[in-house]
Every structure is written in structure tokens, then in C-alpha cells.
């Protein structure tokens, strides 16, 4: 089970809440679903597993940490397995967007996990929330990419995949060639998505419910090697507000926003991660994020039956 789900599960149980856990040990045919999709009442709709059914009008909140990793049923032909999985994902995406209680986070049909800057008006949205937008490049020509990045004058570059298939990492522009040579498989074939990173303090802002919690970022020094566990960092109210506003605009109740804050108080938004992990942070940070999500999941008013 995902660590985030495990911590929130434990937190909800400790707070006295009843929790139904659907995890990756289930197959597509283990999950039972009944949804009256045309109404705003939820008394006739339920989710079930192994004979236990929960009416959705009795559900206050849903934490989604996976969508799809249910095992296909071994009894089905491969083409049927694929069809069933696609239909099940579509049903759940529809349900999770319609459900009126808290959902962390509602999935975007077909496009979950994409980069904030590839959304239509994504850069404008980030700027409107108060962040600076770094120069970014999606180029197939690597020589041109290096030349363009050198032109920006910023010392670092953040390399990532457009759909999260390249592990994001920050390197010095001078070492970019070396870094790109290390990409293999599909990642080596696709255009490189790179952001120029100015000098400044690098932080990750976790937005969980109504709270914003800042930490340092592993590898923030721009050098390789073991790093200490990210601990709580200072967070100015104006940045906290901007982070919460951006998460809200993106309909994310849990998000991690990577920032670089320069000496002239520009806060560059490098990325908004809609599926963040935090089990690498200090115990204190983990506890605070978990607590914020437990609070958010418990806070929903009654769902109409």
C-alpha cells in the first residue's frame, strides 16, 4: 500500500472514523460498484468489496492514491481484461468527479499527471496566483536545448518528462549533456522538457486541505549525494496563500508545489505535483501533512441520501 494512504488510514482510524480500504491486492472483479449517475442523491449508490457494501451517502471523503492498478481477473481473456479495466477506470473517474464529498484528488479524465504548464492557460494560471513562471522548453533537438538554456543565463536546469515518465532532476546547465545521455528507453526518444532554474532557495510547499507546509527539497544544492530528510522550512504567508490559491484553482486538495525563491523575492513555480509523496520527510512534517488530510477528509458535511 502507498505510504500516504497507510498514514492517512491509520490517522482516520485513530480519530475514530470507519474506513473502507481498497488497495492493489484487489482484482477488477473484486470491486463492486453501483452508481445512479444522473442524480445528486447518493443513497442508492454504493461501493463494495468482498461482500461489504458502503452506501456513498455514508461516505464523507475519499482519498485516491491510485486509479487503475487493480489486478485484471485471471479468468478473463486479455482483450476482455483490457476492456474491463478501461471501463472500470472510466466509471470511477466519473464517480469521483461527481461525488459531492471531499475527494483527494479528483482525477482529470484521461489526463491525470500532466504538467501544469501543458494545460491550456496553465502558465497564465500560475502567474495569476502570484508565482513567477520559469522559462521552459520542450525540444527534440538537444543541441538547441543547451544553447537556449545557456541564453537564459540561469545556472541550473530542471529536466522532467511531460507526462511524468522521466524522474525530474535538477542539474547545472553545463552538465546537461551528461544528464541527457543517461536517459534510456522511451525517455530517450521524447523531446526533453526543461525549465531554467534561477539561483535561489528551493522549497517544496505541500498543500493539504487548508494548510500549506514548506520543506526543503532533496538535491536542492544541485549536487548528487545523500541528503538529509527534508524538514520544515519557513513559509511566508504570501507564498502560503499563493500555494493554496493555485491548488484550489487546479482543484487539488493535496499537492506539492516546487518553488525557487530568488533574492528579489520572485517565487518561481517549477512544478505542481498532484500525486505527491512525503514519506521521505521528517516525522514532524509527515505527521502534519497526515493530520491535515485527516482533517480535510473528516470535515465534509453530510452527503445527500
Amino acid at each position, binding site marked *: 500500500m502507498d505510504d500516504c494512504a497507510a498514514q492517512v488510514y491509520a490517522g482516520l482510524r485513530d480519530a475514530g472514523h470507519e474506513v473502507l480500504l481498497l488497495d492493489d491486492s484487489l482484482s477488477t*472483479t473484486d*470491486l*463492486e*460498484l*453501483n*452508481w*445512479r*449517475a*444522473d*442524480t445528486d442523491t447518493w443513497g442508492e449508490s454504493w461501493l463494495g468489496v468482498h461482500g461489504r457494501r458502503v452506501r456513498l451517502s455514508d461516505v464523507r471523503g475519499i482519498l485516491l492514491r491510485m*486509479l*487503475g492498478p487493480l489486478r485484471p*481477473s485471471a479468468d*478473463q481473456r*486479455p482483450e*476482455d481484461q*483490457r*476492456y474491463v*479495466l*478501461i*471501463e*472500470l*477506470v*472510466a*466509471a470511477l*473517474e*466519473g*464517480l469521483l*468527479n*461527481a461525488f459531492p464529498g471531499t475527494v483527494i484528488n479528483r482525477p*482529470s*479524465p*484521461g489526463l491525470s*499527471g500532466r*504538467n501544469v*504548464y*501543458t*494545460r*491550456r492557460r*496553465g*502558465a*497564465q494560471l500560475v502567474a495569476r496566483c502570484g508565482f513567477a*513562471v520559469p*522559462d*521552459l*522548453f*520542450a*525540444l*527534440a*533537438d538537444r543541441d*538547441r536545448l543547451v544553447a*537556449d538554456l545557456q541564453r537564459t543565463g540561469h545556472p541550473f536546469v530542471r529536466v522532467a518528462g*511531460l*507526462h511524468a515518465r522521466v524522474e525530474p532532476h535538477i542539474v547545472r546547465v553545463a552538465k546537461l549533456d551528461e544528464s541527457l545521455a543517461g536517459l534510456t528507453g*522511451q*525517455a530517450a*526518444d*521524447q*523531446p526533453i*522538457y526543461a525549465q531554467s532554474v534561477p539561483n535561489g532557495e528551493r522549497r517544496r510547499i505541500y498543500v493539504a486541505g487548508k494548510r500549506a507546509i514548506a520543506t526543503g527539497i532533496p538535491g536542492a544544492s544541485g549536487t548528487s549525494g545523500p541528503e538529509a530528510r527534508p524538514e520544515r522550512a519557513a513559509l511566508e504567508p504570501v507564498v502560503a496563500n499563493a500555494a493554496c490559491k493555485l491548488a484550489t484553482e487546479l482543484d487539488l486538495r493535496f499537492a506539492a508545489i516546487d518553488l525557487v525563491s530568488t533574492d528579489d523575492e520572485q517565487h518561481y513555480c517549477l512544478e505542481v505535483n498532484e500525486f505527491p509523496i512525503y514519506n521521505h520527510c521528517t516525522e514532524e512534517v509527515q505527521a502534519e501533512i497526515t493530520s491535515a488530510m485527516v482533517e480535510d477528509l473528516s470535515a465534509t458535511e453530510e452527503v445527500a441520501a
Partner: protein
Amino acid sequence: MILMLGPLADSGTANLALTLTGMGSEFIILDPRSYGTKWSVDWSIEAGQFTGCVRTPRRTIAAEDITAIWAHMLLLPEHNNVETSPERLGPPARVASLIAFVDAFPGHVVNRPSSASTNSVKPYQARLIAASGFPPIPTLITTCPDEARRFIDTQGDVIFKSISWYRSRVRRVTNEDFARLDRVRNCPTQFQKFVPGHDVRVHRVGAQLFATEVVTTADDYRYVPLDGERTMTAVDLPADVAARCLTLADALDMDVCGIDLRRTPDGEHYCFEVNPIPGYLFYEQYTGQPIGETIAAWLDKPDVACERIRI
């Protein structure tokens, strides 16, 4: 310059290319299947300004010279790996970068992948349809045979169809189907109250609507049996229905789309879905409506102002 992305095997894309040629419009057509091997796109946002280009072996086209993009079938069946690993359900990385370019492009796009994707989750799109003023249709999505039986008993005539982008033939539940409802345990299935009446397919092109009424004996007019009947006629929509169609298409950010309506005997209009890749030629050949010409003209000179990213 119009950038057309789509295989020429797609009749709608091929017809548009011919029409644009006849109009003397400047366009380039590129096949998404050869993206990354025969042509590529580069783009960037520098100082808040979107710039980019399309590179082919013979020429490079600057993004600022592209007035509109026709994006059809960026994801083809060969892109869909048959593996059932969830990671495989998303687009391959190579195509993902093309999708990102088309989504981020600040000019006109028919249609952005992010807009088109609403059609891949039918109950999600149904909520947006209801929010645009069309009456909701009683719908049950279930893996429970007893609930399916109860819904059918309560609603009377009921059809079933896919939930996702998978194309399925819409059929009314028959006595034979009723007897095999236990099979829904294997796969969530969408049941919907049958709406009586005539189908009306509405093509939206910019500010214009082309409505085609389909009278048929079949549950799904796309699949009429040999002994069945189908007539298709160009019709005018009531003003309030036309307004709802435009509101809906705007909400979905689709300048060109096919809206599936059904007009009941008492004159109510229900909406089933909005197709971002409408097969307009099928309707045009029966009614003579100039849908393709209008799409071509719109791509050549969109009737709404073009936006450019400037932060």
C-alpha cells in the same frame, strides 16, 4: 497556415485537406503515426511568450504562423498497447509530447486533447451536459445484477452502452439480455432509460450549427439492419435548444464537435454525448449540409479572436 494532424485514411481529415486545397488555403498535413521519426515539434514559453515550431525534413513552420490546428486521432489504435498494466493506459511518452504541444498551443485547436478527453468518461461528460441545461437521463452504472434488474424493472425500456471511449453499439435490453445480467459482475455496465423519439445530430462549427434529424427503426442509427430504415434530413433547431448546444460546446471548449440529441414526441431534447471527432461526412452525404466546407473556412479564418499567451 493551418496545421492538420491526422491520418489521410480518416475520411474527415482527407476531405478537409481537399476542401482547403480548393480554397487555396495554406496548410500542411502531418500523420501523427510518424511523429518523432519523420517530423517533430519544439515549443517553449520564454518571458511569458509561447513560441515554437513544427520541423519536417523539408521545412520549419513557426508556431506564430499557425492560425489553427486540426488535431484528429493523435492517439491511434497502434498506440494502445494491449498490456493491461495501468501505466499503459496513458499515452506513450512519444505521443505525450505531441499532445502537450497541441494542448499548450495558444491559438485555435480543433480539438484540444484535454477537451476531447471529456468524451472518454461518459458519465463525466453527462454531468457537464446537464449543467448546460439538458435534462438528465436516468442512468445506472453497476456491477450488481440485482440492481441492474431493479433499474430495468423500474425504468421500463432500457439501453446499455460503454462507459469509456470504447465504441459500443447502443442496444435496448432484451429478454435474452435480461437472462444474462449476471455477467455484469465481470464489468461495470452502463444502463440508461430509453428515450423515445428521433435522433438529432448537431454539428457545431464556430458560431454555426448544422442539425440533422435521423428517423430510424434501429436503437443505434449507426447500425441499421438490412431490413431496417433510416432517413436523414436537415432541420432547424428551436432557438433555446440551439443556445444550449452552443453553451455546452463552449463549456467543453470545442469549436467543432458533434452533439447527439434526441427529440421526444412531446418536443423535449435530451443530449447523450458530445463527440470531439465528429464523422461529419456521413451526415453531409445525406443532407447536403456544407459542414466540411464550413469547418475548412473556419480553420482558415476562425470567427473568434485568436489568443496569444502573454503573462
